[in-house]
Structures are given as C-alpha cells and as structure tokens.
C-alpha cells in the first residue's frame, strides 16, 4: 500500500514527464489573431441555435394565443384570498402547451421580491438560525433555502423556507434525530440534484468528534424530508465528511486501524434509490 507522499511524488514526476511530451509552436512572436475558424464556427452555431429557439418560441406563442383559444383570465391585479386561489372563475383549462400547475406549487405573483433580503430578514429575526443555504431556484419560480435551527442544546431542526414572495414562509420543519450534532457553521450547505428529479436537494453538515457528517434534505418523495439510508427514518446522518462533487454525493470510510488518525480512508459514492427513497452507498 503506497502512502500520500509516494502518490504526490509520482504525480510530480508524471506531470513533468507528460508536460515534456508537449510540442509548443516554435514562433514566439505575437500575431493578433483574426477570429479563428473554430471561433467563427462556434459563433455560427450559437447564432443558428438562437434563431431556431426564437422561431420555436414565437410559433408556440402564436399557437397559444391564437383567436380560437378560449380566453384565459387571471385576476392577478385583484387578488382575493390566498395566492393559490387568485385565479378567477373565468380561468379556463390550460392549453395543451402549458403545464398544469400542481396545487402545492403555485406560481408566485411577485416579480420584485428579493429572496436574499427575505432570508437576511429571517436570519436577523431568528438568532437560533445558525446555518443556512443561499436561496436557490426551485419548481414553479419558487426560491427556497434551508436553515439550520438550534433553539436549545437538545433540539435541532432544519427549516425549508419559501422566499419567493419577499418574506420567509416555512414549507417544512424537519426535526433532526439524536445525537444532537452541532451545525457546522463554517461549511457551506451544498445544493445539487441528488435524487434525479431535476430539482435541487441540500446537503447540511454537522460537527462530530473527528469529522463532519451530513444529512440530505429533499422533496423527491413529494414531501420535504431528511433522506434516510435504509428503512429506519432516523438513519439520516451520512459520514464521514460527505460532499457533493460533480453532482453526486460522496464520503469517506475510515478503517481506524490502528487509530482513526492513522487509518485508511476509502471513498464512498452514494446513489439515490428512488424505489425506497433512500440514499445507498456503493
């Protein structure tokens, strides 16, 4: 078994040897380049792509608002009742090109709301909010963030906040099981689609004795939850030191032989089991 020092030496040696295989062009004078063929080709492709997109969008708009389409009336200027009920009684069924809106994910009417400011206000009003993600775009124009709440030494929770309207509205409060790890304030909460539903999930990190375990927060199953590793819903802490790298979750395992400080680490890659809504190591 080789150690890190030997790996590092081999890396330096290999890279120097590889670099010597390069054959830079001999001319050392700068000639201001015309647009190279590759750059020209890319610009042409970009232009054609943009033209195609504009044409398709225009055709779709014409089709949607064609005269034979029943009128769609949305009473956004005269709201009455909660936001998800603001569509008027004249609202017709959506045309085939529009996506039906699930009842739990209503499009937001405010276009000027600042989710970052809303999150800042929430954090200022809640001194027990000790860790937080940045606002991220979610389905149906939602802007959400997760916040780690530590109201007392025996209670930890993660709040999922909707920031779309300019104020922080809780979507879910997820109580963390014991042990009551402290939130790792210095480690950013990472986001990525870990469950394959094309929506962001969150990795919240904590401080344990010698590593920083984490939990995955997701709504892939339809409700916000801490994703467990098996049928036990309290088996949510993933260790050691999980991180999201290139869109997937990985962590390390330490054989702690003879001690954890001197032990051998192994990389573990985690995958989401959609059938059982669990994270499984591979």
């Amino acid at each position, binding site marked *: *078994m*080789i*150690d*890190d020092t030997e*790996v*590092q030496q*081999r*890396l*330096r*040696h*290999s*890279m*120097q*040897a*590889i*670099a*010597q*295989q*390069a*054959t*830079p*062009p001999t001319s*050392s*004078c*700068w000639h*201001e*380049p015309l647009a*190279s063929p*590759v*750059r020209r080709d890319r610009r042409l492709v970009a232009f054609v792509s943009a033209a195609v997109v504009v044409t398709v969008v225009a055709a779709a708009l014409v089709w949607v608002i064609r005269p034979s389409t029943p009128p769609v009336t949305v009473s956004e200027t005269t709201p009455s009742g909660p936001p998800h009920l603001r569509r008027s009684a004249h609202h017709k069924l959506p045309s085939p090109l529009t996506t039906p809106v699930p009842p739990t994910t209503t499009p937001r009417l405010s276009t000027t709301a600042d989710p970052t400011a809303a999150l800042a206000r929430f954090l200022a009003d809640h001194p027990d909010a000790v860790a937080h993600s940045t606002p991220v775009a979610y389905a149906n124009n939602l802007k959400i963030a997760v916040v780690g709440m530590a109201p007392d030494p025996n209670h930890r929770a993660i709040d999922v906040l909707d920031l779309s309207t300019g104020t922080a509205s809780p979507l879910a409060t997820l109580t963390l099981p014991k042990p009551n790890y402290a939130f790792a304030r210095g*480690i*950013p909460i990472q986001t990525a689609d870990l469950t394959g539903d094309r929506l962001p999930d969150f990795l919240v990190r904590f401080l344990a004795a010698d590593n920083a375990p984490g939990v995955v927060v997701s709504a892939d199953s339809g409700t916000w939850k801490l994703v467990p590793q098996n049928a036990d819903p309290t088996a949510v802490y993933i260790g050691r*030191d999980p*991180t999201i*790298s*290139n869109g997937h979750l*990985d962590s*390390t395992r330490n054989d702690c032989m003879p001690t954890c400080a001197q032990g051998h*680490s*192994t*990389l573990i890659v985690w995958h989401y089991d959609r059938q059982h809504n669990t994270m499984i190591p591979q």
Partner: protein
Amino acid sequence: MRAESALSEAGSSFEEVYATRRVGLHRLAFVITGSDEIAEEMVQEAFARLHERWRTVSNPAAYVSRTVTNLCRTEVRRRRRERDSLPRPVIVGNPEIDETWAAVSRLPDRQRAVLILRYYADLSESEIADVLDCRVGTVKSAHHRALVRLRRELS
C-alpha cells in the same frame, strides 16, 4: 490599442508576457487536455482575450493562466458531453508514469484540475481556489478525495 505600446501595471508589455509565458502555458494546457492542437488553440484564445482586456487586467500572467486553465477544462467537459473525440492519455513508456497518468485521467474534472495545478503548476491551495473560482475548502476536499482515489488505484 496596439499591443506593441501597451504596458501592464507591472511594467511588462503584452509581447513580453506572451514571449515568457507562452511555452509554459502550452505545457500546462497539454497536461490538462492531452493534445497539442487543443493546447495551442486554448493558449491562443487566452492571449487573444488578454489582448482585448489589456488595459483593465492588473495581473496579466495570472489572468492568462486562469483563462488557459478554465478554457481547457471547459473544452474537455464539452468534448466529453458531446462524446467528441477526447485525446487518449499520453503514453510516455515508463510503466509507473503511464499507470499514474492513466489514473489521473480517470479522475473527475475538478479533482484532476486541482492535482495538475498543485503538482505541475505548483500553486498553493488559495491560488488554485482563485483559478478555479471556488472556495479553498473545496480545493482541499477535492485534493483529499483525489489522493485517496489515486492511492487506492495505484496500490
């Protein structure tokens, strides 16, 4: 503005930066991409961008290094995504080097970039974070994961 008369804040002319950095950057780009053609194109593109921004760039050498690195990474990712032809790992003929390099080539993009910038370009972790536009902690974790994986593959 003509390059001949342009001087950076550090006092170097564009042509001086080009003359002193071109070969080193070509080698760096070659290590990242494994191709002389791509390396030459990326270095030329980076200097073209530097030329356009010469008046506003305070550290031309750092700027062009960062640009070359990121252009190469983007190009490698693009070729992978489009299943375009990626250069085969360079074969030196020394089994130890070839084995190490093949293992490096299989690493995820960011981990490979961190190793190249650390062990070929001799950058510090904070400098790597600057080049890759990420946090130092991200560099550390990518570095750690890369070493763990290499140690496992090379054992």
